[in-house]
């Protein structure tokens, strides 16, 4: 049973702030107000993470997304700390630009390239929860549909055949688009790493975490994290 969001969770989230992050406040609001968990911002030049139980890499345009989306962020001090955190089993969720950063720094395979339509797309998209075997989806139902917004220009997930086959064979595709908005291979919207503790997804669960946002579908990701943490 998913924990009640109104009961204060003992779990603490860290939300990374890169210069150019612009969904940092949204992620912070989602977990602190709508999940009733503790949250703290983490500045990009931190060499050491504060005592947090999960890290969110938010959306935005880190370092202006110059060169390539996420390409500069991977050299920031905080990413080294996050790599160590992930290597020790820490929970890391990269959303949108956060996903791009995670692929750039090798914590997740593949790459996010320009949308097939060559344009920025902002719209609610229907997703299938493709696997509940992860700390990011365990509160959901396999095969269930949820609707999260996307807002990106470079969200077309791309990887070589072998990687795609591996992702599927290892049940690491967590979210799939029902009506592919950006040309992502095999309709992939979100994946996790082999250790299942690092998530990357282009759609924004934090933007649908209360009825006033139009839906609370996105809570499934954060409730799953709280369940996973409680089960630890």
């Amino acid at each position, binding site marked *: 049973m998913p924990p009640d969001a109104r009961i204060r969770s003992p779990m603490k989230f860290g939300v990374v702030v890169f210069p150019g992050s612009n969904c940092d406040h949204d992620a912070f609001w989602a977990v602190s107000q709508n999940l009733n968990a503790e949250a703290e911002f983490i500045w990009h030049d931190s060499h050491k993470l504060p005592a947090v139980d999960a890290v969110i890499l938010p959306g935005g345009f880190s370092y202006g997304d110059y060169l390539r989306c996420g390409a500069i962020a991977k050299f920031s001090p905080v990413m080294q700390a996050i790599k160590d955190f992930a290597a020790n089993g820490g929970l890391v969720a990269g959303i949108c630009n956060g996903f791009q950063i995670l692929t750039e720094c090798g914590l997740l395979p593949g790459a996010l390239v320009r949308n097939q339509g060559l344009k*920025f797309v902002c719209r609610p998209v229907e997703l299938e929860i493709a696997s509940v075997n992860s700390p990011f989806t365990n509160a959901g139902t396999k095969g269930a549909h949820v609707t999260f917004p996307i807002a990106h220009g470079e969200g077309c997930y791309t990887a070589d055949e072998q990687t795609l086959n591996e992702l599927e064979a290892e049940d690491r595709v967590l979210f799939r688009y029902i009506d592919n908005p950006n040309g992502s291979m095999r309709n992939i919207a979100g994946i996790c790493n082999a250790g299942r503790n690092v998530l990357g997804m282009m759609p924004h669960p934090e933007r649908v975490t209360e009825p006033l946002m139009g839906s609370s579908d996105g809570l499934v990701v954060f409730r799953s994290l709280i369940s996973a943490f409680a089960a630890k």
Partner: protein
Amino acid sequence: MLNITPELLATHKLNASEYDKIVSLLGRTPSITELGIFSVMWSEHCSYKSSRVHLKKLPTKSKYVLLGPGENAGIIDIGGGYGVAFKIESHNHPSFIEPFQGAATGVGGILRDIFTMGARPIAVMDAIRFGPLGDPQYGKRNKRIFEGVVSGISHYGNCFGVPTVGGETSFHPGYNGNPLVNVFALGVVKADEVFLGRAEGVGNPVIYVGAKTGKDGIHGATMASDEFTEESKQHRPNVQMGDPFMEKLLLEACLEAMQTGAIEGIQDMGAAGLTCSTSEMGSRAGTGMDVELMKVPQRESDMTAYEIMLSESQERMLLVAKLGREQEVFDVFKKWGLDAAVVGVVTGDGILRIRHKGELVAEIPNRALADEAPIYNRPYTVPQRNVPMEGPEFKSVDLAADLHAMLASDNLCSKRWIWEQYDYTVRTNTIAGPGYDAAIVRVKETGTSVAMALDGNGRYCYLSPREGAKLMVAEACRNVSTVGALPIAATNNLNFGNPERPEIMAQLVEAIEGMSEACEFFETPITGGNVSLYNETLGEGILPSPVLGIVGLMKTEAPVKNTFPKAGLDVVLLGGIGSTDLIHFGGTEYANTILKSLWGMPPALDMAQEKKIQTAIRQIVGEGLAESSHDVSDGGLAVALAECSFGGVGCDVELVSDLRPEFTLFHEGPSRILVSTSQVEKVMKLGKEVGVEVTRIGSTIEERFVVKGLLDLTLSELRRTWETALEIKLHA
């Protein structure tokens, strides 16, 4: 000494009498830097010299207005100790020359106007106007400009992280040579932590922050005060380059620095760059400034004083810090990786002194630049109009085909292609986004919400600037009321042609007077705005195009839909079928799209009736009686009913009227709102109490779109026409 030739004055757009005034104010011949400074500060764009005497007619005060015109943006009280700062500004000229950067920097400029007040921007809207996409002569260029403008707005707003929640787009051949890009922004500020652009405190350091100064955008303000000619492309270097990432850093750094308490005053460097910020901050506070340009962070090594003062490089701010607390400001900007440098000091003598490598290159009383700018009460006659009062004889051969054609028209087709390129949900405050009559954005700090809408109709204003302006105010207020909000304040963007032509000046004057009358009546004072004149290319002026941005207040709750949510509801028309005659039909979309003609007068407006309708709909929505609510505007009742049906549920209505079918379906008489409801008696009763006509015209049904005796259509086909038209045109 500078050799002043007529050519030199002409390139600075200064006339002989203006030059004589400069000489008498200075008591000597100006230096080239001084001439440049006067030319931008006295440009139409910065000085409002042709509009100022008329702008004074606008109402600017109410119990909600915390700060009216004169600062970087107006501020209204939204309760709970908070205010919202908002303003609209044009970037028309740059967007014609370089659509992508022109539009992008238009967004950047207005965002800085908002956060310089200490307000965090939470919403942007755009009113954009282009020549028709299918124009036989200019269609290709119009498409290029249109796509460039949309991607420029998308690029800047999305990266900065502010949602673009609404706006409006329209097309007319009058914009073939001169598109309009008006950007509205709104931000939230603590009512007692508002920052002003004032250089207070003699001896305080003047600090430059943000991007380095380059040679881009020099004389942008002067360019924006001129007509276009064949040579205008050569002005491309006058268009600035925007960097939304830099702007985002500047936003965060400025808001953080303001929290230190070390900042006395702050102003963005927009039009006329360093010139405008130094002189305006001084003149507002009655102080002067002594500035050394060598200390200004520069992108290039060989810039002259003239270039540094006139550069319009983007993403820069000027601030005055408290003496001795500079370091606190530096620390914040260093954290965000931005340049910050002390470039001067506030002085007590009211004189702007500019030095370059120690040499005094300009010494001008601030008063001379700001208060002594020329003011012209330009002659005006009757507004230009080259169309007849009487309309042509016409009879529709196929009303269904007409409706399809209208829904596929540039002006009425779905604008999804545009707004899906804008991030409209970032910041998670967007309760109603693009596609609604008005956008609704919640304010997390207060627990209340703000509704906003942009409106304007160039054809109406061409037929009658005065009536067109009133209709614009009425519709903007109606849009905000339709979602349940109380309209309380406005910002205006006055886009007109060359004011030196008396028939164009007359358009401006009448539009301002009409707007003034309506804003007074609807109790929506103008708290700021922008005037953009000389919107002409090769002597062809645009349609007179005032644009109004309205802001309203409401409680935070799920929005009422603007489409029918389910079958089996009653469809009710507030305000009734209305009336028209041939003369008042000449400005409609039907006349424009189907008859390809323009004549007569805009629809007749009864402001008292309009106010009642707005009161009624706010109550109906506020009491939860409406399942959907949508106003009748461009395209008339048939188009409004179709729009209500595009959520997937149609309607079956009967329109009882003495009017001919074309008028019944397509006239644009104002003061009408469509509501679907399951509590029709209550809606009727409420309407009666308020004194408005409420007519039950039919019910919502699945799959069909029926107006008895006139139209019986398959909804999905109608919807497809509307949804796909814009992309079909773009790819044609």
